[in-house]
């Protein structure tokens, strides 16, 4: 088991390195750098001015060197500027060049500086992750129990009327992307023109004080899309378990139907949904981006859109590191959990 985890962690680090390099490569292509220079300076910069701006800020070094600097395995660049000031990646404003550390990258805990928000990337990510964590927590609280109940009720008696109805509901939720359900919910529950006016159409206020009125719609929107999928998996696995020999034996022994479901079937039926729930995280991340944009909730997903739209290289890299790590860690947990829950699977 230890060997298995170790190997998976190794692959994980390799994947993370490859992915960040791809993001790094794409954001550091010259047209993107030119756009960055123009948004930072002004839009009427000539080509020479763009080149000189990029040179002064260390953007024109070879790609591998820049990536090494960002990682923290290559010493940060130091450039003697035209006005005699020494500028460098690791030299903060107000400190002498001699006192600055040689390396400053991810490995040293320095995430870089966001050009859009004019703040340290580490701090931005910290704040935004807390906000998105709050959102995700409530999504999970709403999504997982309702999906499991839906799936178990449907799979309990396969082919019955309840099963048909619940399965159709599950299919409908998986067929409704967040930008559709979000728009429908706002139209029905939050529109000022017509509608019920139960909830708020934006969640900006929920960043400071979340309450039912301003936070329920975004949570519901994300939860609904993931719910259908988990419910269908639970239903399939429940239906399979219900046809097993030991369930029939229990029924023939005279155990009541609720007892069979609760005591005999449930635990075996929940192995498959567990993996699915873990693997839902990457998809939830997508939902988070859409919903945070739609409801103007300034969390992690909203930051991703801002960073990508403005080619904020270091913020975008930070965002991708976090999302890649989240995806890979959940995959690892789902693999390990699967092995623990299902003793028939062995790992070498």
């Amino acid at each position, binding site marked *: 088991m230890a060997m298995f985890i170790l190997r998976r962690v190794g692959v994980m680090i390799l994947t993370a390195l490859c992915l960040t390099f791809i993001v790094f490569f794409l954001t550091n292509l010259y047209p993107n750098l030119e756009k960055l220079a123009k948004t930072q300076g002004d839009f009427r910069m000539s080509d020479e001015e763009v080149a000189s701006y990029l040179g002064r800020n260390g953007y024109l070094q070879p790609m591998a060197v820049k990536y090494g600097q960002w990682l923290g395995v290559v010493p940060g660049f130091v450039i003697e500027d035209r006005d005699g000031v020494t500028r460098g990646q690791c030299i903060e404003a107000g400190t002498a060049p001699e006192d600055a550390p040689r390396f400053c990258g991810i490995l040293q805990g320095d995430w870089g500086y966001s050009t859009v928000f004019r703040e340290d990337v580490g701090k931005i990510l910290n704040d935004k992750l807390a906000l998105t964590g709050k959102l995700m927590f409530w999504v999970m609280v709403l999504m997982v129990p309702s999906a499991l109940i839906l799936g178990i009720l449907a799979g309990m008696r396969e082919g019955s009327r309840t099963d048909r109805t619940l399965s159709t509901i599950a*299919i409908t939720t998986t*067929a409704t992307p967040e930008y559709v359900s979000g728009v429908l919910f706002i139209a029905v529950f939050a529109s000022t023109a017509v509608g019920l006016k139960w909830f708020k159409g934006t969640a900006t206020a929920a960043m400071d004080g979340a309450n039912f009125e301003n936070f329920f719609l975004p949570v519901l929107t994300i939860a609904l899309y993931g719910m259908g999928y988990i419910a269908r998996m639970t239903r399939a696995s429940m239906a399979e378990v219900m046809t097993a020999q030991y369930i029939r034996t229990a029924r023939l022994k005279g155990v009541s139907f609720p007892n069979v479901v609760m005591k005999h079937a449930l635990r075996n039926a929940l192995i498959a949904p567990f993996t699915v729930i873990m693997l839902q995280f990457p998809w939830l991340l997508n939902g988070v981006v859409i919903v945070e944009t739609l409801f103007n909730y300034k969390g992690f997903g909203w930051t991703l859109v801002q960073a990508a739209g403005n080619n904020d290289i270091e913020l975008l890299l930070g965002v991708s590191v976090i999302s890649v790590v989240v995806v890979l860690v959940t995959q690892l947990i789902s693999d390990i959990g699967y092995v623990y829950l299902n003793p028939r699977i062995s790992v070498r």
Partner: protein
Amino acid sequence: MDALSWSDIILRMLEQFTPVWIALIVTFVLSFSFKRHLGLYGKLFDSPIGMVGYAMVMFWVFTGVFGGGFDMIVTHDVLAQSAPMKNKGPGTAFTQLMGTPDPNAYPYYLLGGDNLGRDVFSRMVVGAWEVIKIAPFASLFAFMVGITLGLPAGYYGGKLDTFLSFLANLILAFPVILLFYLLVTPEIVLTGIPVYMAAVLFLFPIVFLVLLWNSRYHTQPSRRNVYVGITLVIGLWLYLGIAWDADPLGLVSFPPNLLVVFVAVVFVNSPTVFRIVRGLTMDIKTRDYVAAAQTRGERPWYIMLWEILPNARGPLLVDFCLRIGYTTILLGTLGFFGLGLSPESPDWGSTINDGRKLLTMYLHPALPPAFALLSLVLGLNLLADGLREESLRD
């Protein structure tokens, strides 16, 4: 003229869709009468869920083809703006501020006007065409890529499998929206990366077909040469035109911004297909008929393409339906974030994005495309469900 009442609006919309109803009825009558001769497609008509799904999908397919392709259902030009019609509700009589209105113009905006005074109904209809043009082909290409790589990965295993699976997981670990934001921007188009990606991805259908013919007719060289030759000539001609925009005859070309969208969608979908095909191959290669083929000395590609692939068709067909739906969702996502397609484009994602900004005041511009997208994807899901049920039955 007064605004129409809701019952009038519905009647008039039903009337506008007349060609679609006729086409749907013809399709269903024909399919019903020959359902015992049509294999799996015919069996679909035994399952109520499958039929409902199929009807919903075909409704939008016909709407797209007749509306976008032949200009039949639309009531107004999708790009024409009319200042007095801005944000007007459904059923408002059509007026123009400047110039005399065309006397032949349709007298109403059936579903109202959007924030620029364009007809919501027509945009919804043409939006179907935008999806029908891209989604099935993008899914098909993703399947070609996934199958061509997934079969050998599952069949041979070993280092090849490890390497390809690593690549697939690498792409899957990317949040889709981040990938879109990185790939589908005007700056990236300038660097030419989408063209290179298209050059690689669009090679796979040709490779797939050549392998298919070559492995089947290896023993009949004359027949094989004809098939492979035709595939290569037509394939490479289309390939040059679509991927490189360098068609020697000047007939085939592809709008660059559409190419980026297409490539991005194929790129995101193919790793999932790869994983499904790989899993199915690993399962099927242990069967007796594969062992029999190996014993009689068949070549690996023959076994993969003519023994394993046909036996994996059930799950693949089901996934194909689901994948078209997912591609539709992805296209909507692209439109929603204003990536790729032009801002004026009538595709559903862009229209929803335009409409949502005024959503608390005016509902009518955002809701029709939202319901349209919902019903198409729901139809595809129900169709997949029906297919799954019917293919499991035998």
